[in-house]
């Protein structure tokens, strides 16, 4: 690979020439120095062509030297780390950096898609709304794929992002956004006053514009003053200085989001370290010192590589010691443009002329001055070679130059003051929008961001605004002794675009929006600023119109015969600059997306080949595979048979447990459950159905009365948190004087269901001798606090989900693992098995118990066959609205069971029920199957479901249809209680 020399490198600059670093762009190798950005290094190597535009694929060079860059976008890095649309102007150079140009085919120099440029008259704003409509089907098949392929900019690798990201939270009295002269003065004043300060800047060195200028601050250069100030700030423990940190959003009540680019300037992110950090900054006050962004002037072919903002051209020369070309010219409507000419002359660059639109243009730089003149057109294929100038007297002139610095004035960076829908106001003196009164609460503005462009003004207002902000917090900040600095006005004379041209003058260079497009939008009545934006895509590019919006507004204002403030601006929205999704994602990656909750028997389950299932954040054992079992059904059927035949144990810790105490505990439960609890005897447990206030079933579970004023309530696993919140609402907001205290104990106790005919025999070996668990001594629905295994406190409940003789035993969680193993040991003589959620589900379906899929938020007590449970003799949540007509239809859905007529057929959950002989469509829908399983006990597939008027349709044969699979099965309507309908087993 050939290596270009740094021909356009100038003297001086803030780069470290002692080190040379290598990088490649489109496969070609170049050299640069630490301190370079990709764009400064490319310019140093004489590369002006860096990208292609979005629509016409026009050649593009760098326009700016900052994050507002619309043109010089590259694919940075390679492989899984490829970053599309990376601004070459902010990408710090590192050894081995690899960059590729994008949105071109096949190469940057020759882009076949540039054919679009020839047809620009056909591809005007919004042309696609007017065609591609015939025939309809062709849109997806033909037109759209072509458009999509041509559109877009860079490409994602589509490989998993290998880098890590982190998040954090910071707190401060004063957040200072931007580390230029205003920000530094503010930080100095606030820091010396002892306030806790965060000073953040998106750049990798502090100083802002001072790094790009040559004038002095006090007795030293601007850079030296900035460095000295930083040295002091960094020595203050109460000041946190953050470089490479962009404040991207202003959110409610002083919360700002910031992105710190920790390792983007390194070849690779160090292991275990984040690539970027998203900071959430909680500030009492904030001060915006974000400076201003220069705006271009529109003229014909103003988009050629080499044409850039004058202030950026100056920054490249002063800070990075590069020029885009040996011969340059300046086109300006204000004094600031002349500074560029002066600085470049001082660096030995040939400045061909300063073209100034003002008749009274001052002579500032020692080069040819063309007052009352305009650049009308340019030439040069892949880069600027000539500019065409119209002089005041109407005569024309061609000037040869490889670069043109354009200055149309500066726009204060008001972004952050508009994130809460504050509107900027027009300042005629600088012909720009400045922050309005209705800005972001707690945020004040200083320096160029407020329209105070001179360095002296920036220092002064930064210091003053910091003091004012701290005064709100009762912190007194003594005045600073500020250094002398330039204080010249820019003497701008508004000038937006050069008239009279036949060709195209670009406003939005990335999206290819020209003056003509704005004119067309006006002609078609897309005149509101939002219509203009959306119809022409002006300002919708990756730079969000930072350099282009004002020009568009000015032209629309002129066409509409309005003033610019009358036309108004579009809404500024976060983020200030684009933020990787990974950064907002932080540590939540892969398995760590959400926390995992493990049950007390987790270790045992892992050791015994359990398959796990996610239930909320819980991991529960679904079944335990034994040697020889290949299909999960084998394991589940075995577990069910073992429980029904002898005994099994299942971890049910995940069910919510809420401790309810107090002299009004019983009365409280009476309010939250639809059925009565006041008369529940101590030592007894009762099933409870909880309704929402709208009368729908909310949750169900049991409440065990351990003593007169102490209950333990269980909830379903899924609703544990919601039910607790609901109980606190009822307690605090509805019945504030009830004496009741609540606390969750879900995780404090490891709770196991021991179920099956031999469960009592097994538990006999676990509970201590003095505990009577005979059928008489501990009957169905009994509960008691006991001791087990020689004195360990435990709780025993005789409740059954499986329909078998069953108990639930609870011990402190730390002993849960040992207890599970102890039960397995003690049960060996009964061939005890551990069983999972699948077997549990099969057995509850066999028994006709409702669960999550029945308690689906749209079922009533009536639907669930518990209509009579809703007491009408007391007030309880939901009882009144449960009496509404719509919840008590005579043909209401009822929970019933289903069996396939042909036992080899399968009942599918989610299938819909159709009366025989009626059309199979939504109108004739009779209900649906909520849960289904293969029942080893009945040796048949069975299901539960809701059926219209189900209670009166036992024995009827229905069609269970599953259009998704095309399967239709005849099923018989049966009682939901497939097994032991009388309940003899659980009372045995």
């Amino acid at each position, binding site marked *: 690979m050939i290596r270009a020399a740094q021909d356009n490198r100038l003297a001086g600059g803030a780069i470290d020439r002692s080190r040379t670093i290598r990088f490649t762009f489109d496969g070609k190798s170049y050299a640069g120095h630490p301190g370079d950005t990709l764009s400064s290094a490319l310019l140093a190597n004489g590369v002006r062509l860096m990208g292609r535009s979005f629509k016409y694929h026009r050649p593009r060079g760098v326009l700016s030297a900052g994050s507002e860059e619309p043109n010089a976008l590259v694919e940075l890095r390679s492989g899984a780390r490829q970053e599309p649309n990376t601004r070459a102007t902010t990408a710090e150079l590192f050894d081995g950096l690899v960059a590729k140009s994008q949105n071109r085919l096949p190469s940057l120099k020759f882009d076949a898609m540039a054919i679009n440029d020839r047809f620009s008259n056909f591809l005007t704003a919004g042309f696609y709304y007017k065609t591609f409509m015939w025939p309809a089907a062709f849109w997806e098949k033909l037109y759209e794929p072509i458009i999509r392929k041509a559109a877009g900019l860079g490409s994602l690798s589509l490989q998993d992002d290998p880098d890590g990201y982190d998040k954090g939270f910071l707190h401060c009295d004063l957040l200072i956004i931007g580390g230029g002269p205003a920000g530094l003065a503010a930080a100095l004043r606030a820091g010396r006053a002892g306030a806790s300060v965060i000073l953040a800047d998106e750049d990798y060195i502090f100083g802002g514009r001072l790094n790009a200028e040559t004038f002095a601050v006090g007795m030293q250069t601007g850079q030296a003053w900035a460095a000295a100030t930083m040295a002091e700030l960094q020595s203050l423990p109460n000041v946190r200085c953050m470089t490479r940190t962009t404040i991207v959003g202003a959110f409610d009540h002083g919360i700002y989001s910031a992105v710190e680019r920790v390792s983007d300037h390194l070849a690779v992110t160090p292991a275990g370290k984040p690539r970027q950090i998203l900071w959430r900054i909680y500030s009492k006050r904030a001060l915006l010192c974000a400076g201003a962004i220069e705006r271009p002037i529109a003229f014909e072919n103003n988009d050629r590589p080499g044409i850039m903002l004058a202030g950026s051209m100056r920054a490249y020369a002063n800070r990075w010691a590069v020029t885009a070309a040996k011969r340059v010219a300046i086109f300006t409507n204000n004094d600031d443009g002349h500074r560029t000419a002066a600085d470049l002359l001082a660096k030995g660059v040939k400045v061909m002329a300063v073209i100034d639109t003002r008749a009274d243009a001052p002579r500032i730089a020692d080069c040819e001055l063309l007052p009352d003149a305009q650049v009308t057109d340019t030439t040069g294929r892949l880069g600027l070679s000539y500019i065409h100038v119209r002089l005041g007297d109407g005569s024309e002139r061609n000037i040869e130059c490889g670069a043109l610095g354009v200055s149309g004035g500066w726009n204060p960076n008001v972004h952050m003051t508009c994130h809460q829908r504050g509107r900027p106001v027009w300042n005629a003196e600088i012909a720009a929008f400045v922050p309005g009164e209705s800005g972001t609460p707690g945020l004040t503005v200083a320096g160029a961001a407020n329209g105070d462009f001179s360095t002296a003004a920036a220092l002064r207002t930064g210091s003053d605004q910091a003091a004012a902000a701290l005064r709100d917090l009762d912190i007194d900040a003594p005045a600073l002794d500020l250094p002398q600095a330039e204080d010249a006005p820019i003497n701008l004379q508004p000038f937006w675009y050069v008239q009279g041209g036949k060709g195209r003058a670009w406003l939005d260079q990335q999206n290819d929006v020209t003056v003509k497009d704005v004119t067309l939008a006006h002609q078609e009545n897309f005149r509101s600023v939002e219509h203009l934006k959306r119809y022409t895509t002006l300002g919708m590019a990756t730079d969000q119109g930072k350099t282009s919006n004002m020009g568009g507004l000015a032209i629309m204002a002129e066409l509409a015969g309005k003033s610019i403030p009358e036309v108004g601006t579009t809404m500024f*929205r976060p983020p200030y600059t684009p933020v990787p999704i990974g950064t907002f994602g932080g540590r939540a990656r892969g398995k760590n997306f959400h926390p995992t909750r493990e049950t007390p028997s987790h270790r045992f389950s892992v050791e015994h080949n359990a398959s796990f299932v996610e239930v909320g954040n819980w991991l529960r054992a679904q079944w335990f595979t034994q040697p020889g079992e290949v299909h999960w059904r084998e394991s589940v059927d075995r577990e069910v048979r073992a429980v029904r035949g002898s005994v099994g144990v299942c971890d049910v810790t995940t069910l919510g447990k809420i401790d309810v105490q107090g002299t009004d505990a019983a009365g409280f439960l009476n309010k939250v459950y639809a059925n009565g609890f006041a008369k529940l005897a101590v030592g007894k447990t009762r099933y409870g159905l909880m309704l929402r206030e709208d*009368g729908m079933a909310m949750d169900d579970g049991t409440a065990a009365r351990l003593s007169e004023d102490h209950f333990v309530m269980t909830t379903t696993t899924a609703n544990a948190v919601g039910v607790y919140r609901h109980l606190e609402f009822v307690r605090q907001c509805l019945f504030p004087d009830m004496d009741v205290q609540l606390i969750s104990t879900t995780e404090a106790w490891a709770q196991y269901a021991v179920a099956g005919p031999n469960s009592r025999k097994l538990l006999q070996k676990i509970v201590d001798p003095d505990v009577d668990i005979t059928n008489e001594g501990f009957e169905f629905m009994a509960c008691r606090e006991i001791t087990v295994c020689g004195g360990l406190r435990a709780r025993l409940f005789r409740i059954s989900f499986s329909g078998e003789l069953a108990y639930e035993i609870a011990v402190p969680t730390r002993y849960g693992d040992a207890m599970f193993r102890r039960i397995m040991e003690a049960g060996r003589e009964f061939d005890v098995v551990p069983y999972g959620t699948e077997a549990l589900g099969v057995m509850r379906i066999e028994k006709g118990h409702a669960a999550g899929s029945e308690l689906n938020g749209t079922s009533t007590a009536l639907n669930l066959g518990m209509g009579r449970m809703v007491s009408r003799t007391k007030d309880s949540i939901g009882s009144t609205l449960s009496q509404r007509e719509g919840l008590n239809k005579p043909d209401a859905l009822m929970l019933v069971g289903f069996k396939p007529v042909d036992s080899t057929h399968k009942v599918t959950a989610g299938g819909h029920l159709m009366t025989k002989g009626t059309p199979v469509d939504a109108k004739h829908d009779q209900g649906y199957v909520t849960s289904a399983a293969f029942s080893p006990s009945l040796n048949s597939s069975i299901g539960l479901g809701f059926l219209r008027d189900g209670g009166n349709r036992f024995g009827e044969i229905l069609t269970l249809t599953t259009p998704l699979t095309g399967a239709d099965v005849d099923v018989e309507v049966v009682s939901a209680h497939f097994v032991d309908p009388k309940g003899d087993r659980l009372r045995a």
Partner: protein
Amino acid sequence: MRYSGLRIIKEALTGNKGWKPAWRDPEPQPAYDFVIIGGGGHGLATAYYLASTFGKKRIAVLEKGWIGGGNVGRNTTIIRSNYLLEGNGPFYEYALKLWEGLEQELNYNAMVSQRGILNLIHTDAQRTAFTRRGNAMILNGADAEMLGVEQIRARYPFLNFNDARFPIKGGLAQHRGGTVRHDAVAWGYARGADNLGVDIIQNCEVTGFRIENGVCKGVETSRGFIGAGKVASCVAGSSSRLMAKAGMRLPIESTVLQAFVTEGLKPVLPGVITFGAGHFYCSQSDKGGLVFGGDPDGYNTYAQRGNLPVVEGVMESGMALIPALGRARVLRMWGGLMDMSMDGSPIIDRTEIEGLYFNGGWCYGGFKATPASGMCYAHLLARDIPHEYATAYRFDRFRRGYMIDEKGVGAQPNLH
């Protein structure tokens, strides 16, 4: 003027001087037969169908700001009809059918792109729920297909199939679902309505209703009183604010739904994809931006902006589902105001005030409903009886207990 490829060529060769305004900016008349409040998608569609399908005249659309500035201009552009309940299914399927013919009907390319929507499944309970839903869709005449993991992997190989916290176990696809260029919907209906003589009046805010003994005679506006035979509220997002001026309280709360778009990227996502274990759905616009969103912020607001917790939650979900998104950059985030109704379903009905009609409560299902909402509302306005597909969208369903609660979360709007 009629749009066509030929017209584009003709105009191109004559310097594009001949393009006419897409709609006029008329001065308001003293009175109309129909005054539709709200120049959003639904309002403009209602006006269009009133004039076209129902042949009505003297129609005005009053817009507080610029047309299409509400939710039709700030949504995630998705269309689908994957609904479960009988009150919703037929309505949204009708909407989808209208979308399919929209561009030819309007002679405006709104880029209706039926590239499919996929709802991912992560648990067995979800599979059951989606099976029931998919079956209901087919029974309602919509299309649905249950996809297995391998089918999904084939189309979306970059989803997290390796170390997902909530593994993908399948998905319910509706191939006729997709996206539409949202702004173009408002502009297309506006242009169509304007061609049929509808007055579209921008920058005209309704400040009150003139109600005389129980009958609505017209509206007071920032541009004076405008009389009306029938007044139709169509301002989802601000329904409560407007109807309060008529003394009504609604079963609605307003909240903000945030949405996001990345920088332009070469094609990545072929269709619309919805994460089933987190709050994230995503598609890619023709311009190349990934357009995505999640859940509403959840507190009552009219601020059209949200806060960080939801922003982070959405993107955490995005990274959990598509780890390759890490290096795509979010370009812009915004918020739209949602009329969150008490059961998550809309209302298209008469009010107790004669001559005053209501359309709202769309939650975040409003965009996909636009054509059907316009057609059904126009039907109600023209004939005073509900359209067959909108009979369930009554005010009194809450009093009588006939809620249409797809999510089953009850009378808590921010959960729908």
